[in-house]
């Protein structure tokens, strides 16, 4: 009896301790991944309303940009494969495609949103993966040599054309970042000051966690815990490309969904690439898009690409567990105590 009383007191004290911070927390599954929204310092009713609005927007974008379930994007892909022009009546889709084309050029096609055929070939255009082994070598080579690129896409007066039938748009490396930027608009419109939005590893720190900054854990690609944590200043975004959430294992070899557009094969020398993006109108998109070139580029080109894209903060985990980190990010990061720091190289 006395022990029970003590336990009840202990539990009550624990929960009272937790309720001190005014955090509203909501999760949902959109874009085939988990979305985590935290709002600080708002009434539950208001936070509920705003997060509901954000989730509705995410579901709308999911339907708008879906790469294989019928959507404006699959309509465009159907037209391209039949070499037919198509009228796009949705200005948002035109803006997104134009931006994606610009970013492909900027990343020297290491971010290439037109390789839908390759992604499908590797079995990532499905909610249920059916293990069929490694795709045919010649099919991969043919798809790569046909050189699918957003460059082939011309949009004039709402009419889209491409002279490359192998172009299939897949905005998988863009949509989540774009959704972050849309969430930012909704938070601003509703006058919410502090929130943390996490869309499958693309994270936006909006404002702060009260007196302190939002703290984000950087996932260890091979273990279910963080290798490090980092405080995000208001408005900063963080994006990770990793081989640990979407991958297939064929003959004990891991194949990630991050396919190198230049080779047609999943990049296998990298476990994850994380970047921090300073506040800007499209920081969400940049956090999503710019992590891809860093993941895909060969190990000696990674640093070059980071310089080219003006990415000051990056952390890359290679397949042998060695870590490349930029000097700037190294100054901001807190390593996990148990991490072997021998393997860290600072650039």
């Amino acid at each position, binding site marked *: 009896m006395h022990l029970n009383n003590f336990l009840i007191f202990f539990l009550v004290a624990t929960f009272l301790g937790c309720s001190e911070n005014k955090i509203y927390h909501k999760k949902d599954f959109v874009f085939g991944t988990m979305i985590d929204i935290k709002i600080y310092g708002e009434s539950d009713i208001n936070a509920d309303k705003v997060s509901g609005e954000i989730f509705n927007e995410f579901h709308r974008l999911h339907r708008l940009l879906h790469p294989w379930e019928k959507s404006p994007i699959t309509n465009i892909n159907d037209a391209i494969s039949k070499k037919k022009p198509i009228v796009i009546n949705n200005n948002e889709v035109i803006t997104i495609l134009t931006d994606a084309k610009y970013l492909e050029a900027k990343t020297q096609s290491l971010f290439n949103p037109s390789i839908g055929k390759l992604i499908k070939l590797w079995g990532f255009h499905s909610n249920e993966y059916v293990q069929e082994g490694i795709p045919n070598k010649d099919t991969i080579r043919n798809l790569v040599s046909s050189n699918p690129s957003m460059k082939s896409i011309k949009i004039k007066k709402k009419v889209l054309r491409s002279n490359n039938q192998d172009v299939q748009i897949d905005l998988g490396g863009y949509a989540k970042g774009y959704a972050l930027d849309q969430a930012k608009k909704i938070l601003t419109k509703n006058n919410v000051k502090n929130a943390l939005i996490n869309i499958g590893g693309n994270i936006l720190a909006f404002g702060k966690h009260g007196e302190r900054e*939002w703290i984000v854990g950087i996932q260890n690609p091979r273990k279910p815990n963080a290798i490090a944590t980092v405080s995000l200043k208001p408005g900063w975004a963080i994006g990770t490309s990793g081989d640990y959430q979407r991958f297939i294992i064929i003959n004990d070899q891991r194949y990630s969904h991050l396919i190198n557009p230049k080779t047609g094969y999943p990049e296998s020398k990298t476990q994850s690439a994380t970047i921090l993006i300073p506040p800007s109108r499209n920081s969400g998109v940049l956090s999503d898009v710019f992590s891809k070139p860093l993941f895909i580029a060969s190990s000696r080109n990674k640093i070059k690409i980071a310089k080219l894209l003006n990415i000051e903060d990056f952390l890359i985990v290679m397949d042998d567990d060695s870590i490349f980190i930029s000097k700037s990010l190294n100054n901001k990061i807190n390593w996990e105590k148990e991490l072997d720091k021998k393997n860290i190289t600072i650039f």
Partner: protein
Amino acid sequence: MIKKILQSSRLIKPGDWFIIFLFCLLIVISAKVLWDLPQGQYLEIHKNNEILATYSLNQKTKKQIHGPKGVTEVIINSGKVRFSSSPCPKKYCIHQGWIQKANQTIVCIPNQISIYIVGGKRAYDTINY
């Protein structure tokens, strides 16, 4: 009234004070030990966006959770926990193996079930899973 209190305080002998002191010390020490346990004490099972259940980790048991794809099974084994069977196609959640520290988490996206070890101080607000 005051007389009575004075009388009763005279009833407490030096030895009693020692016992009282010993018990106070016991309370302080046990509180410290209990609060500072390095391992998370509770397992939270989330289904989609709701907390489905909270369990103690100090037990040996199996829990079945019904998700949109079917039944996922979680094993709790004296302080650690893992996914043991899942209807998801790629079984990433099972490959993650055991977790045992506070803040560790495994998410099974297809069946929309996630497990969290909670307790202790959270080191971060979110993680780039």
